[in-house]
């Protein structure tokens, strides 16, 4: 692919009825509401412009796009003038050329004349337009008042603002307002003195800017430009690919200069992101070439030895021999594998295939176990499909948005921006979260109701809302009657109607005033299209599956499934967590969520794979670790996961890993889990391979290789090497063949193939004969399972209880600039925003303990103890503390317990009884762990020292 800029139509698309007009003698028909500028661009007439770009509403400030319209006075701006029937427009006349040159002459009279040395040379709209309007001379000269002495702002690690290059078109300001919704930029002053300013005319880093990059993207000159472009030069080719961070699944153009990545630019045609991005996907890709990358396979006899670099042949042979040895010694079911939600669908599919076909058991699990496994269980039980019901765009039709246990502005920032746009348009918002997340109140956004419930009481809260809806007659009876299982509904309605489940009855339990709960329930039930968005604050509880089902119950009862602007929408944590689940990564089911006990499904695979499959479910991750400590589980292949840091009760994980005889870790870096590994297989980044990711809206998108893998192999190739060393005889030469196999074996993927993805950009499963174009929205006329199934969700409190020793409740979450265990983001300048995890504690609780802001505190639970620094804030309620878990030093999971979701064993990260006390520094465990980690990461150099 060569480097071409994306076409810019100048103003956003419109969707009115057809209007015919004439532009420069050419007749055309466009939707009403289309600007003259866009209409002209559609017939390849590019009217000069600077302040207009099709990602932003028209503004009309640059005055380059003036046109003449028959029968109208003056020279209207084509960007702000909509087409009208029969309109006759001229875009090129002598008068217009003169006016445009006059405007451009003014621009250039206040602009540095250093095009040749400017980092945007050749990629600058001002430069292009000066040429387009035929500017030859600036008669005003360059001695007048100007802005050429403005100081560069280099505070942001990723981009530079050079006011001297700024033409004050406000595209950056508007991008921050309209696209991102942070409103961190403004124009300072007015008239000639107007200048772009961040917050109160401060540097970008200390301003409200969240570094999403929208302003940089919008800037037509090099006033706002990526530092990498300054350093490396403008790109010469571009490859469209999919982001490897969160479950939003943004599409980017990886813009390259030779083999070097220059920048990641959000792609306008990306169906999930529509040209928007966040600080992670846009900028935090430097880890891909970080010095910490391990590029050679390594082996060691035991974990107290240093690593020894070996050839791929030796490493792969070692793995195959060890696994077979263990199986011979301890039985077929003594080994297993963990697939990665960060790897492609194809890679994930191959890992579970390796386990099922090669290991001969079903001991495969995935990190969805620790995040969204309850979503799979809950939505499958109620609706019939383990996935969200809508596409992201659906939010633009929502009238009421209920966010529970999710923090989209940090966890799913690009979707949050779309949601915030809808909220600014007037949709109502309900937030159910123990913590006052940004959505509760941030500029121009304010939740109608924030229910700051006590962690662990989701089910009681949702059931109380159901109580209100049922007892106040707010149920959509017709919908329920037609679409849902009536007996189940009747049983459920009776259950929730019991006075013991009223908001008043649970007020003391949840800590939320009953009237607020009632008001929120009424709003949800009667406010129009109501959509629920939820995250790990729902699933990571001992009642995670119940909560998911309680959510589904609410949506069904109010008729909010199967239409635009409604639905039940899990916000997936990792880029391919949906895909990993779809691909059969769970120990009890094959791809497409078909239980392993189903003989017909097994037969399909057995025939295709030429192997007999174990009909019994395999072990889940926590059970693998249990079995390891019991001595029955001895070997594991872990691709792209860091279970030691990400899974609960670190000591238990460590003990399990330590008890195994062959731990194989495939990763980019020597992660924490690798401290217990015997074989390390270097992994490849998403930039180094082809494949697909599936985002939270079931959207399958292509990941395209933009550079050669540093280690020589894509991850799927490494899995194939292992498989073949174990005698499986795989012969894939391209991931598309793996997708063909997935499609062949998975009815919901039957129509998916790389050609279709290339053509359409992306598709949403199910895609098959019944849904040849894929399925943006599910359950439209009927539920996948037939009738919607109401499920009684009794509130069963967690056994994790506060008491005198552990009086506070710890809940955990993520922050915008960091991602999961931080393996990637910690290796980028994103640490400038978040260099350490901190414990958020309410001023009242802090004062009681003599803790001041920034103090080291000890955080102790029944499982363990760690230390970190405190941040005093009333974002958390009294009695609740909160931390992120992005840094291994924090060891937040030393604290978390063994308690987990009753149905899926998803760990109860969100509720841990703790005590907080002042402390002087890291705990003993942290110290000894650090020593162990350092020792474990020794690599024997090839040339021994003299």
């Amino acid at each position, binding site marked *: 692919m060569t480097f071409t800029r994306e076409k810019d139509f100048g103003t956003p698309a419109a969707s009115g009825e057809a209007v015919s007009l004439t532009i420069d003698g050419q007749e055309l028909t466009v939707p009403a509401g289309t600007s003259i500028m866009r209409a002209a661009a559609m017939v390849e007439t590019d009217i000069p412009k600077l302040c207009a770009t099709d990602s932003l509403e028209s503004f009309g400030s640059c*005055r380059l796009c*003036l046109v003449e319209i028959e029968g109208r006075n003056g020279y209207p*701006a084509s960007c702000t003038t909509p087409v009208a029937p029969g309109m006759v427009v001229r875009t090129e006349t002598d008068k217009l050329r003169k006016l445009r040159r006059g405007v451009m002459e*003014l621009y250039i009279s*206040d602009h540095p004349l250093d095009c040749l040395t400017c980092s945007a040379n050749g990629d600058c709209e001002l430069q292009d337009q000066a040429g387009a309007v035929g500017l030859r001379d600036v*008669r005003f000269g360059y001695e007048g008042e100007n802005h050429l002495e403005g100081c560069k702002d280099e505070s942001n690690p990723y981009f530079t603002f050079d006011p001297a290059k700024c033409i004050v078109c406000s595209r950056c300001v508007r991008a921050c307002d309209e696209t991102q919704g942070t409103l961190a930029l403004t*124009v300072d002053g007015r008239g*000639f003195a107007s200048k772009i300013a961040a917050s109160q005319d401060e540097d970008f880093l200390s301003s409200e800017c969240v570094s999403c990059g929208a302003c940089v993207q919008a800037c037509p000159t090099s006033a706002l430009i990526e530092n990498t472009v300054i350093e490396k030069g403008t790109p010469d080719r571009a490859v469209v690919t999919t982001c490897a961070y969160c479950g939003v699944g943004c599409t980017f153009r990886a813009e390259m200069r030779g083999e070097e990545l220059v920048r990641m630019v959000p792609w306008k045609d990306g169906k999930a992101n529509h040209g928007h991005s966040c600080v992670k996907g846009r900028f935090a890709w430097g880890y891909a070439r970080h010095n910490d990358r391990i590029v050679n396979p390594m082996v060691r006899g035991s974990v107290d030895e240093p690593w020894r670099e070996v050839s791929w042949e030796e490493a792969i042979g070692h793995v195959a021999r060890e696994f077979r040895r263990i199986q011979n010694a301890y039985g077929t079911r003594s080994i297993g594998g963990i697939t990665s939600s960060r790897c492609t669908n194809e890679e994930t599919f191959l890992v579970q295939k390796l386990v099922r076909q090669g290991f001969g058991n079903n001991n495969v699990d995935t990190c969805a176990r620790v995040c969204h496994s309850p979503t799979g269980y809950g939505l499958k039980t109620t609706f019939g499909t383990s996935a969200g019901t809508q596409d992201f765009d659906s939010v633009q039709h929502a009238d009421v948005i209920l966010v529970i246990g999710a923090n989209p502005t940090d966890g799913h920032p690009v979707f949050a921006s779309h949601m915030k746009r809808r909220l600014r348009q007037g949709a109502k918002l309900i937030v159910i979260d123990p913590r006052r997340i940004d959505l509760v109140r941030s500029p121009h956004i304010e939740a109608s109701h924030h229910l700051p419930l006590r962690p662990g009481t989701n089910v009681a809260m949702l059931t109380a809302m159901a109580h209100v809806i049922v007892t106040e007659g707010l149920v959509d009876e017709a919908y329920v009657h037609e679409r849902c299982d009536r007996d189940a509904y009747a049983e459920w309605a009776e259950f929730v109607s019991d006075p013991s489940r009223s908001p008043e009855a649970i007020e003391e339990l949840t800590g939320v005033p009953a009237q607020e709960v009632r008001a929120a329930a009424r709003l949800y039930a009667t406010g129009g299209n109501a959509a629920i968005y939820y995250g790990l604050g729902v699933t990571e509880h001992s009642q995670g599956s119940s909560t998911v089902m309680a959510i589904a119950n609410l949506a069904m009862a109010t008729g909010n499934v199967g239409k635009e602007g409604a639905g039940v929408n899990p916000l997936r944590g990792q880029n391919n967590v949906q895909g990993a689940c779809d691909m059969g990564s769970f120990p009890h089911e094959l791809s497409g969520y078909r239980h392993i006990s189903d003989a017909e499904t097994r037969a399909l695979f057995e025939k295709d794979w030429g192997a007999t499959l174990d009909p019994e479910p395999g072990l889940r991750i926590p059970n693998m670790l249990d079995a390891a400590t019991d001595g029955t589980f001895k070997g594991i292949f872990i691709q792209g996961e860091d279970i030691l840091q990400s899974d609960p009760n670190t000591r238990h994980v460590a003990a399990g890993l330590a008890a195994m005889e062959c731990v194989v870790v495939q990763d980019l870096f020597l992660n924490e889990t690798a401290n217990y590994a015997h074989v390390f297989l270097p992994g490849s980044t998403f930039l180094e391979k082809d494949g697909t990711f599936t985002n939270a809206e079931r959207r399958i998108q292509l990941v395209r290789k933009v550079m050669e893998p540093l280690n020589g192999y894509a991850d799927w190739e490494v899995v194939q090497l292992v498989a073949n060393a174990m005698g499986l005889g795989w012969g894939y030469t391209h991931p598309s063949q793996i997708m063909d196999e997935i499609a062949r074996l998975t009815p919901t993927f039957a129509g998916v193939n790389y050609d279709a993805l290339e053509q359409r950009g992306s598709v949403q499963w199910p895609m098959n004969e019944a849904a040849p174009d894929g399925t943006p929205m599910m359950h439209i006329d009927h539920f996948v399972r037939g009738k919607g199934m109401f499920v009684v969700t009794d509130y069963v409190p967690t056994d994790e209880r506060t008491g005198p020793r552990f009086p506070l409740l710890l809940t955990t979450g993520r922050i915008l600039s960091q991602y999961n265990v931080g393996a990637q983001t910690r290796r980028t300048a994103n640490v400038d925003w978040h260099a350490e995890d901190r414990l958020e504690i309410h001023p009242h609780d802090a004062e009681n303990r003599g803790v001041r802001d920034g103090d080291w505190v000890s955080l102790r639970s029944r499982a363990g103890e760690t230390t970190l620094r405190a941040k005093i804030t009333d974002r958390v309620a009294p009695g609740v503390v909160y931390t992120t878990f992005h840094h291994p030093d924090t060891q937040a999971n030393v604290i978390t317990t063994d308690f987990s979701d009753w149905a899926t064993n998803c760990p109860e990260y969100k509720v841990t009884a703790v005590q907080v006390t002042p402390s002087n520094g890291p705990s003993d465990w942290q110290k000894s762990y650090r020593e162990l980690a350092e020792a474990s990461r020794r690599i024997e150099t090839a040339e021994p020292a003299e």
Partner: protein
Amino acid sequence: MTRVFISKDMASVALGADAVAQAFAKAGCEVVRTGSHGLFAIEPLVEVETSEGRVAYGPVGPDDVAAVLDGSHGTRIGAIADHPFFVRQQRFTFARCGVTDPLSLSDYGVHGGWKGLEAATALSAQDVVDAVKASGLRGRGGAGFPTGIKWQTVLDTPADEKFIVCNADEGDSGTFADRMLMEGDPYCLIEGMAIAGHAVGAGRGYIYIRSEYPFAIEAMREAIARSASRIAPFTLEVRVGAGAYVCGEETALLDSIEGKRGQVRAKPPLPAIEGLWGKPTVINNVLSLAAVPFILAEGAQSYADVGFGRSRGTMPIQIAGNVRNGGLYEVGFGVTLGELVNGIGGGTASGRPVRAVQVGGPLGAYFPPSMFHLPFDYEAFAQAGGLIGHAGITVFDDSVDMAHMARFAMEFCAVESCGKCTPCRIGSTRGVELIDRIVAKAPRAAGALETMPQIRNASRAARTHDEEVELLRDLCDTMKHGSLCALGGFTPYPVLSALDHFPEDFGGGDALREAAE
């Protein structure tokens, strides 16, 4: 106890009316503070109530109490209506101004107040809009757009809420009619807005007053408070500007009320369809809204009967600047410029010959006396390369330097530009620099840049005077046709009219050549 009437108009106060009022009060008189009749040469004006009616004296100082009270004061005018300045006026809008206590609801009622609103509420919304259409009333803010048509659009646009906004951001130099009306007859404006609310289905109105008008702000606030029950359920609120001339542009004004930077919005959408907070909004000037009670009370025809061509009704013309009889003169359209300046205005205050008259504020053209035959009419002024604007005329005597005034027009545009569009934002500053070069007879020499070998397109020669003037005309053309709103778009009017009618002030070719040698 003798009743005397003394204006508390800001102009009267600036001329010492407060001290005069105090003196009369001290002398035991009952002092009624009114608005101003509008002739400042006779302010502070005192009217003494007598059995023959009010007898006016002016100007009067605090030491003149006794002489006024015994009728011996030398500035005795008699009945104010008989004064030559007032005798030919047609006071439709300003009928009460100077006569009544502005805040007295009973005064307002006695003098015909609320008749328009009563008439309007007895009619359907459409009938009210029709009446306004039939009156021929055109927006008095400057653009002269038919008010009834604007109202019709708002009436026809369905919405859950609509607004009436009064543009009282009267920033043009040489204009003060809005201020005088708000200070002198605030209920008239309130009544007009209430009628507008009824006519289009709006429940709330805002009056946006510039902060430079503290008296008007206070008067309107008090009047709104006192008349709240009279206009209910319609409600009104005063919003105060903050030193931004551009907020007189209607869309900038709306943004300012919304609490934003007062930047001009691109149109469409029209405010009548998407105005304040995106809702259909009538936005009219003070004088437009204040004309409405008369139209409803007396009938559209009695308003339409007065006027000239397509300009119907009366126009409160403000005669200002270097003029003997400066003040407010309400009369039907059609009076000539010369009559206003020399006849009514009485020529310059300085006694020197009139050299130029600027009509329509800082964005209006300068006219030489040779064009005094122009009738006061929207179309006639437009044809002559000017505009009536808010009907302020500023008189200059022969000491004026018209190149300086052209420069000032650019400077004012630079000071007040909102900065959104390029022609206004950069053009005004370049205009100042350019006129400076022209009047300094120092045309631009080729700079360091043009003389660099790699710069091959630019002229290396110094520019001639004619080239600089041509550039100024080009700049004016760019600003006029390229600007987003009237600020940048009309600034060329004073500049070009000065250049056209007074070229000698910009330095002739001969003088320039000499300077260059």
